[in-house]
């Protein structure tokens, strides 16, 4: 991911009114006011193209996959495996054998924790993460710590919410067995220097997992160019359905990992004495998978491509700059997370008004923001706040949305006069 996405020469600028018409939910009114949805970092809305692809699958194609010789089963299988190929192209992975469908980023990371880390890590081995991780990239490693005696080592951040790369370099040691870091921080918006981190880890022969949940909706990701060993993301933060996500992993790593869950679809043959596991990627997909979700994810990728990720990124960056300037002018607002390179996430606190009161008042004004700890309690502790309000921008947000946010914040000040 480029540090600050540049205005693209390849994609036309977004026609945001046309984009908005693709998202039926944006026509909703909330408490009598037109909805301003600024919570896409928690879950983005879905365009008609995704809703229709899921409906088409359900109405026309559905049967169980990889099982029947009948027509529907073959069509469902083709749709599901077609979605896998679409994901492979999206990430520029070498092979569909490297694309595992999961329930989402959380399950992807847990799969790596249980199938990669747990069998091979022991007492004294170190897993290196950062201080800005989402709980989904903390707790799975704490489980591994309990199971194996491995240590969790945390690279610090500074007051702007930037990773202390020098500290990360220093903490990469002889016992480091895995580096697991966010590509983009969900609570702060910080874009991490992942190329630099991967280079440092690989120089020591240490594999790297990227939590890409907040990265994929905002900038192109090429796993081969990055050279990461594992990459995890969710569909629902990139205009796709919930309950479906992806683990990308280099094939030789996956080949060396035991299955995580056992059941149907992940086997070639089963007897009571002996079971032969299926080939990649199905070895890691026990049970009937989320076919309509995979189809929806593929449609979301197509939708993103139709707009151009670079055009989306440029649009969001313009909104981020505008909102940052506007909020800076409101007395008593403090931005939490002011890294030089940020995705379109704006976390803030308002003097004398708790984030939850802000959330309620903004909601009454029709403005949806996330308030709370953003599943990143250590980040809140670091900044000494119990919670923040977080506005996040997607392809369908407008400068008008930013103005509505600003007006709602003034309203909050009025209520708490």
């Amino acid at each position, binding site marked *: 991911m480029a540090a600050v996405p540049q205005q693209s020469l390849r994609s036309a600028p977004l026609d945001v009114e046309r984009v908005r018409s693709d998202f039926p939910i944006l026509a909703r009114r909330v408490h009598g006011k037109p909805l301003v949805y600024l919570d896409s970092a928690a879950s983005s809305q879905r365009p008609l193209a995704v809703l229709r692809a899921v409906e088409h699958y359900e109405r026309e194609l559905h049967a169980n996959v990889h099982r029947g010789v009948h027509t529907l089963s073959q069509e469902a299988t083709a749709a599901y495996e077609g979605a896998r190929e679409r994901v492979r192209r999206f990430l520029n992975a070498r092979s569909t054998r490297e694309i595992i469908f999961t329930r989402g980023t959380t399950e992807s990371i847990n799969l790596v924790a249980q199938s990669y880390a747990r069998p091979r890590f022991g007492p004294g081995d170190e897993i290196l993460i950062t201080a800005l991780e989402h709980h989904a990239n903390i707790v799975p490693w704490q489980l591994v710590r309990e199971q194996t005696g491995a240590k969790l080592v945390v690279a610090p951040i500074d007051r702007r919410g930037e990773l202390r790369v020098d500290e990360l370099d220093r903490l990469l040691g002889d016992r480091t067995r895995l580096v697991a870091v966010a590509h983009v921080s969900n609570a702060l918006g910080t874009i991490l220097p992942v190329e630099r981190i991967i280079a440092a880890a690989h120089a020591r022969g240490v594999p790297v997992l990227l939590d890409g949940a907040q990265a994929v909706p905002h900038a192109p990701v090429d796993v081969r160019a990055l050279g990461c060993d594992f990459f995890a993301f969710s569909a629902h933060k990139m205009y796709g359905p919930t309950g479906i996500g992806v683990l990308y992993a280099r094939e030789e790593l996956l080949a060396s990992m035991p299955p995580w869950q056992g059941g149907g679809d992940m086997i070639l043959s089963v007897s009571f004495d002996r079971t032969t596991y299926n080939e990649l990627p199905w070895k890691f997909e026990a049970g009937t998978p989320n076919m309509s979700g995979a189809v929806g994810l593929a449609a979301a990728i197509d939708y993103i491509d139709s707009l151009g990720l670079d055009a989306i990124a440029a649009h969001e960056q313009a909104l981020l700059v505008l909102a940052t300037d506007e909020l800076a002018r409101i007395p008593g607002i403090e931005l939490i997370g002011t890294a030089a390179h940020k995705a379109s996430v704006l976390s803030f606190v308002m003097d004398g008004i*708790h984030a*939850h009161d802000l959330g*309620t008042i903004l909601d009454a004004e029709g403005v949806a923001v996330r308030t*709370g700890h953003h599943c990143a309690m250590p980040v809140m502790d670091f900044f000494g706040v119990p*919670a923040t309000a977080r506005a996040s921008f997607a392809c369908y947000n407008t400068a008008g949305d930013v103005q509505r946010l600003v007006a709602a914040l003034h309203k909050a000040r009025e209520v708490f006069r």
Partner: protein
Amino acid sequence: MELRDLYRDVILDHNRKPRNFGRVEPADAYAEGHNPLCGDRLTVSLRLAGDRVEDVRFEGKGCAISTASASLMTEAVKGKDRAAVQDLFTRMHGLLTRQDATAGPELGKLAALSGVREFPARVKCASLCWHTLNAALDRSGTSVSTE
């Protein structure tokens, strides 16, 4: 749904100037409350004279609803015996959760919290202090959660 129903003057006043803020030292009972949804924590400490709450204080950082509710609670329960506190707890629970509950005169200033039930996401903010007080009266030194 009107914001002024939630953020009434009494609530804003108690948020700005919480009454009985701090710790009773030494305390006969003490409990810590936690709302995992928002990460808010508050403590309630109290001194008993026989069956009666002689002094009660709260401490913590929370939203306006949770701070005002705790502040109002301390004023309401000070001087009351366990049975009367229990009665208030039951009435408050009804006020915060039941659409048909009416605020009788026995609730006094606590009635200012009746708007909270129109904001379901905020009911736990107002009830955390009461659960914590209950825990303090039941058993000292334990942590309670709204979950």
